[in-house]
């Protein structure tokens, strides 16, 4: 069938194209330019070639930050995804309590990142914070400003507190979209609770769960504000994640060249991971529609 297509409408996206070029494409090109030049500000640039990339690729500082970042993302995914599913499964399906639960779950998501950091910063303090003071009273030696393990635990608990709701709400939406007929069929077959979860709920939630994992991965992989406010990357470098390190390098030390090379590599990793997730998601959609 031959349809005549009028492609003139494409010209209508020109303004968007210009805005995107000005706000995204040209800045990205600028980062590439920074990455192969040395600069001390004042619009003065000196050619550096691949020097910064060579330095960054071999930099143990970057390797350590990347390692911490991957560990952090892995830990929070391993906690938040199962916990979110568990909460969603136990939330009431209808009635007033369903609305109450939804609002309660949405609350942490509404709090600005720096406020979350501040809340936990004070909450965990041994002198005035409820958590820190209580732990000290029970006799647990807890101090997130001195002890790397305590700092890690606090950052992880903070992220779980802040973001598990997102996984729970997405899973809840996925669960609500399962028609009752599936559950009735399962009851007729006398399926166990586990079998219902494994063969009905989990497959039906697959799509939203992938989105949840993607969102949580991306967010945790570029996390900055909360650990910055809570620990400032310390003690030492123990909670210095990639973006904290990047900002230290770019703005703290004004090493714009290495920082640009660093951020380009960071960008490539994020691009790769997003592409993998996107591909998996779209191929799942296709399988379902077949």
């Amino acid at each position: 069938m031959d349809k005549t297509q009028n492609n003139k409408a494409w010209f209508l996206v020109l303004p968007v194209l210009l805005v995107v070029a000005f706000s995204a494409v040209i800045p990205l090109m600028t980062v590439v330019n920074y990455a192969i030049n040395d600069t001390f500000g004042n619009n003065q640039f000196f050619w550096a070639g691949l020097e910064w990339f060579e330095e960054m690729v071999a930099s143990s500082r970057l390797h350590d930050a990347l390692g911490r970042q991957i560990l952090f993302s892995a830990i929070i995914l391993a906690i938040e995804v199962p916990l979110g599913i568990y909460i969603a499964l136990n939330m009431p399906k209808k009635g007033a309590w369903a609305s109450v639960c939804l609002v309660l779950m949405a609350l942490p998501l509404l709090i600005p990142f720096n406020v979350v950091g501040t809340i936990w910063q004070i909450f965990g303090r041994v002198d005035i914070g409820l958590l820190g003071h209580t732990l000290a009273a029970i006799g647990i030696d807890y101090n997130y400003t001195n002890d790397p393990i305590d700092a890690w635990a606090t950052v992880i608990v903070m992220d779980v507190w802040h973001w598990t709701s997102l996984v729970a709400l997405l899973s809840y939406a996925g669960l609500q979209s399962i028609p009752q007929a599936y559950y009735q069929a399962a009851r007729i077959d006398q399926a166990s609770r586990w079998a219902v979860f494994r063969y009905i709920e989990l497959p039906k939630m697959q799509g939203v769960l992938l989105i949840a994992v993607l969102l949580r991965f991306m967010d945790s992989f570029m996390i900055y504000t909360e650990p910055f406010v809570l620990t400032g990357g310390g003690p030492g470098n123990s909670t210095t994640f990639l973006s904290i390190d990047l900002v230290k390098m770019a703005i703290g030390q004004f090493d714009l060249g290495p920082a640009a090379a660093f951020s380009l590599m960071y960008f490539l990793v994020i691009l790769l991971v997003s592409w993998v997730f996107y591909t998996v998601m779209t191929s799942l959609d296709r399988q379902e529609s077949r």
Partner: protein
Amino acid sequence: MTATRWTPIYLGLAALMAAILALLLWAVPITEEGAREWTGQLIPGFWMAWTFPVALFFWVIASLLILMTLLAIRFPETPRIGVLRIETTRGDRLFISLLGSAFIHLGWLFFIGTPAFWGALILSLVYAAAVFRWV
């Protein structure tokens, strides 16, 4: 559209890109000894001090995008499933090639360093050819 109407479009876009490249080459500053300073600023004093290598890099990517757009309009294709077991179109394969090439270059820097850096380019071209053939 018929083939005869495509020829002016091809020629026009090719001329445009060639003109841009010529302009960039013309803008490369010349030192006092008369040699071209390839890493010099194209427009002295301009914002961000753009140099020829960066301009060439983006020129190549822009040319690839224009070429692939033309191909996609003239020869629409159906996605196929390759060795990765995912559906890909030509555009997807270009994306995989470019992203993979970036990682190949970084890997070369990590394992070998700057000596024989053109090796990474050759490796990337081989990789891109493989992606377009089998993915």
